[in-house]
């Protein structure tokens, strides 16, 4: 454990922040521009994992375990979300034979 912490701390904190920010941004962009629901879904996961990574890094730097506990919460709830999300996608696929969200624009003002 010590060595893991030390090797994490060997890299400056800013690098973690930058890396996570980049991954997070990729996720956000993915959500905004992709049209396939499954890919959007994966992009959201990317965002969450960027968060997990950053939380772990912060946790090590503060020497505080609560950040890592939070990561477990996120993972658990992300799994729940995946389950629900895939169920919804399946339901829609049954009705439309597609996972493209462009055909879901019936509701408009």
């Amino acid at each position: 454990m010590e060595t893991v912490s030390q090797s994490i701390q060997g890299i400056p904190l800013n690098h973690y922040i930058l890396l996570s920010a980049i991954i997070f941004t990729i996720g956000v962009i993915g959500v905004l521009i992709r049209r396939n629901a499954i890919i959007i879904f994966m992009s959201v996961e990317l965002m969450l994992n960027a968060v997990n990574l950053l939380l772990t890094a912060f946790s090590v730097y503060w020497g505080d375990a609560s950040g890592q506990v939070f990561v477990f919460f996120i993972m658990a709830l992300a799994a729940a979300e995946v389950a629900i999300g895939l169920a919804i996608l399946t339901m829609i696929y049954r009705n439309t034979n597609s996972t493209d969200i462009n055909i879901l624009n019936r509701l408009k003002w």
Partner: protein
Amino acid sequence: MSALITITILALLLLYLGLFKAKKALLPVALIGLMVALVLSLMEWDSNAAPIFSNMMLYDRFAVAFSGITIFLTILIIALSKDYFERISSNVAEYYALILFSLAGIILMVSYHNLSMLFIGIEIMSVSLYILAGIKKRDFASNEAALKYFLMGAFSTGILLFGVTLIYGASGSFDLEGIKQYILKDPTAVSPLLYTGITLLIVGLSFKVGAAPFHFWVPDVYEGSPSLISAYMSTVVKVAGFAAFLRLIMFSFAPLQDFWIPMIIGMSVLSLLIGNVTAVYQQHFKRMLAYSSISHVGYMLFAIIALNGSSDNAVFVYAAAYSVATIIAFGVLILLQGQVGNDSFDSFNGLARKNPFLALTLTIAMLSLAGIPLTAGFIGKFMMFSKALSSYHIFLVVFAALNAMIGIFYYFKVIVAMYFKEEDRKELIVPVYFKLVLGFSALVTIALGVYPDFIASLI
């Protein structure tokens, strides 16, 4: 805290009742259980509450008041669900259980003292709602609403979490008190990470409450979801989201006002403008309600803009007024959709002649939403306006007053249709549960408007 436990157990109990085919018992058990939870939560009224569960939660007056109002509203909505779910599918128990699970999440959201609890609360609530939005499996609109709500929800959770992480990175704590202490230590020299974190948190929560410019999912989701669930989302969920928002900002970020107030003002102005102007052009009652709910978020944000000790009170009164009136509106909408199959404004024509009671309660609700005196909505708006004026946001208030005028225009469309337009129509059948809920809500609306003392200085 016993309210949270009661609600969770109640949800499980309902699942078992469903398993043993005791369908008749579902609704009464749910109502009684919720009333017990309401009483239990009100019994914890204690002005000097201390954080519990290793500082995870704080069941203070704020939490009691908001969990009280959310449970109360859920009771009203569940009472409207008589025969509603049966039309969708025969497995009714799950729907009740899901509503109650999301309510459990909401109780967490209003009583958290640690950002992890905020996150868990939001997730418990949202995950249940994703399902509820899509319970009409064959209905395309419902499918679409579920997917949109799900994608937007997951997306905003991601943003929210990134904000939480950055705040943790800056302050080294998820605890509201810890964050506050960190900011108070030297408010001028906080880490830039914190500012980014606050921004992302505000954005994330704005998604949840549906404040412009993060509102675009609201009309679609509210329109597509089954009306009962829309009622739940636009009242209970919105109130809870707002309470969580307010709690975070009041507790921890108040010293950094100069940073976030411009953001909130911008959101408030946009919400008012977009909500009101778009609502005018709606032809359908449900979609009009969705846009009006956006505009009401704009008014509620006033309490955050003029933040002080009584903001919670103002939000509480406003939220109560808005929610009760909205429940009446959705109650009538459910009847109308069920029996006429249409919710355009024209389908209200001549309602006053055939269903005077229904028309009267709906009129009271619309007046309250529009903020006409002697209804609860007026007291809410009055408190919001005085708060904003007391902190000299004069432009904002003048703008809001203009928007209130626009609001009257579309709320009155319904009244005009009901009273001034004649049409031959069948009388709507109003079940007893509906009569009770609508009559009671209308009474509450008037009572709060005439004598607001008994809830207005609660917190």
